[in-house]
């Protein structure tokens, strides 16, 4: 039981490439922290630095009140679950879990108790004598979890543990991991590029981009008040609609008062639009030509384009092409393709950002 604190952590590779550019994160005791970001953002590197598999170029990593920068991975009291599970292929499930304990000189009787307890919790009891290759993907994943649990470490580290599973199993394991973590109440750091996984698992969400932290906080708070356009388009699926505030159509609707005037980018989530001919007071209404419809049953996504004179907004991964807008409407009722519709969002649902997208402006 420990908190993990990163203070201005940096990683520079020998070639001079700066993978982590000064990260501060504070994970409280028993909390579940999720690092999320697009590939190459440095989230895995950061996790591996906490694990001790990568050296720290600057700053401090503190686990349970002890600076561990120079401590070997085995002595950090952490356990890690790898993306490809990294099970020892020649050892039985039992020995996979027992290996780390044996290396620490634990008595065989105590090892047996711990492994059997973990196997019971993870429903692996009938498979203890099997080899990893005789197990399914989900079972291997659980063995990897078991190997972490039996150690009873201060901190669990997860490096995209679900990305090798199929979609259905991924959801089931996601719930299982969360339940397990709640029950064991062990501080956990979890890396993923899947924003849905991040939203559902996290107590604290850390959104990373280009080796830097974009925003830290409660997942819902981040969803409701993204600090930058990157966070706005990365968290939430489909992504938030971002558009320039320069065209007169939008400028006049926003009004020239105070803060709205300094905003360069306007963001509206797809679910915050309604199809209506009215313009709510202080809100924004747009004219749209419907170009594509996606029906997924409970909801429908309408893809439409605005007028062609739209100025492009700096695009980030997952973002829509300039001039395109997604609207999410409940149910399967949708306008026809080619139809011209008017959509609107109320004032409270508007997100305003500075022109470079780096700063949120409270309207």
């Amino acid at each position, binding site marked *: 039981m420990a908190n993990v604190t990163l203070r201005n952590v940096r990683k520079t590779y020998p070639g001079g490439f700066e993978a982590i550019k000064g990260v501060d994160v504070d994970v409280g005791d028993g909390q579940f922290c999720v690092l999320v970001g697009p590939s190459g953002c440095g989230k895995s590197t950061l996790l591996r630095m906490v*694990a*001790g598999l990568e050296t720290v170029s600057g700053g401090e990593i503190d686990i349970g009140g002890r600076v561990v920068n120079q401590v070997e991975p*085995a002595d950090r009291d952490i*356990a890690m679950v790898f993306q490809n599970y*990294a*099970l020892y292929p020649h050892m039985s499930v039992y020995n996979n879990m027992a290996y780390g304990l044996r*290396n620490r000189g634990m008595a065989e009787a105590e090892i047996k108790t711990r492994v059997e307890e973990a196997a019971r919790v993870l429903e692996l009891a009938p498979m203890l004598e099997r080899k990893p290759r005789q197990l399914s993907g989900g079972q291997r994943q659980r063995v990897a979890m078991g190997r972490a649990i039996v150690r009873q470490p201060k901190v669990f580290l997860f490096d995209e543990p679900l990305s090798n599973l199929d979609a259905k199993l991924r959801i089931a394991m996601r719930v299982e991991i969360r339940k397990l973590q709640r029950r064991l109440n062990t501080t956990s750091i979890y890396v993923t590029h899947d924003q849905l996984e991040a939203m559902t698992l996290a107590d604290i969400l850390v959104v990373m981009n280009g080796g830097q932290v974009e925003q830290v906080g409660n997942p819902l708070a981040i969803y409701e008040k993204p600090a930058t356009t990157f966070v706005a388009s990365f968290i939430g699926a489909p992504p938030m609609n971002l558009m320039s505030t320069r065209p007169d159509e939008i400028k006049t609707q926003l009004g020239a008062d105070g803060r709205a005037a300094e905003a360069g980018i306007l963001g509206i989530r797809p679910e915050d639009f309604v199809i209506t001919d009215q313009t709510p007071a202080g809100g924004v209404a747009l004219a749209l030509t419907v170009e594509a419809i996606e029906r997924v049953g409970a909801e429908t996504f309408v893809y439409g384009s605005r007028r062609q004179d739209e100025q492009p907004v700096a695009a980030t991964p997952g973002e829509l092409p300039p001039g395109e807008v997604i609207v999410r409407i409940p149910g399967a009722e949708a306008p026809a393709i080619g139809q011209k519709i008017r959509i609107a969002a109320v004032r409270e649902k508007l997100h305003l950002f500075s022109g470079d997208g780096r700063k949120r402006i409270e309207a």
Partner: protein
Amino acid sequence: MVEEEGFRRYVAHVILWIGIAIVAFPVYIAIVASTQDNALIANGQMSLLPGGHFFEVYYQTIFVGTSGSTREPVANMMLNSLIMAILIAVGKIAISIISAYGIVYFRFPFRMPIFWIIFITLMLPVEVRIYPTYKIVADLHMLDSYAGLSLPLIASATATLLFRQFFMTVPDELLEASRIDGAGPLRFFWDTLLPLSRTNMAALFVILFILGWNQYLWPLLITTRDDMQTIQVGIRKMITTSDALTEWPVVMATAVLAMLPPVFVVVVMQKLFVRGLVETEK
């Protein structure tokens, strides 16, 4: 693969049978000749059917030896060959797996130059460096000894390269998981890398054992005493060119006996051998 039908299939079988016959016929002749009477062979009247002297000839070959040239029983030659082949195979595997481990998993100064030096020794087989090697072995007083027979042949670039390639396919996460599990470099080598290399080691053992068993030039040079002779050298010495009559049944029996250990090794290790060459599962 699609199963061929009718005529084409018979053609394929006939071709395969011809191939087998070409390979197997000399072996058959050797076996038959080893059961005949020497006088019959010397007269050029050897039958293509096995003769009646099987036990007699093999008893003489294994325990007594030829009456002429080398009076060394083949049992002793086989023992010498066996010890040499096993020393070479085991020694090569042991040394090359350790050096490959060093090259793949450790960062030390001149790592790449050292790797290249090992690589370059591929171009220097025993035949090329035979004089200096002989000189060194002689200076170390290792002539007519098992050490002299095996040591100069042990260092192996081929096996080092093979293990290096294999180690590079072992996922890094396995090493990292071991580090987190508290296993140091020796532990990781012993507990994880060695068991994973098992099939590769078996495949290599088969190849290297046969390589060691078939050594001719080197044993011929450095052994002078009859009781240190290997079987490959012994066979050659049995075939006399001057005044005496070559005892062909004994020579052929020796040849047949010389085939047995490699065959035995291949048969026993076949399963592991094939897996070692084709295995991708990790």
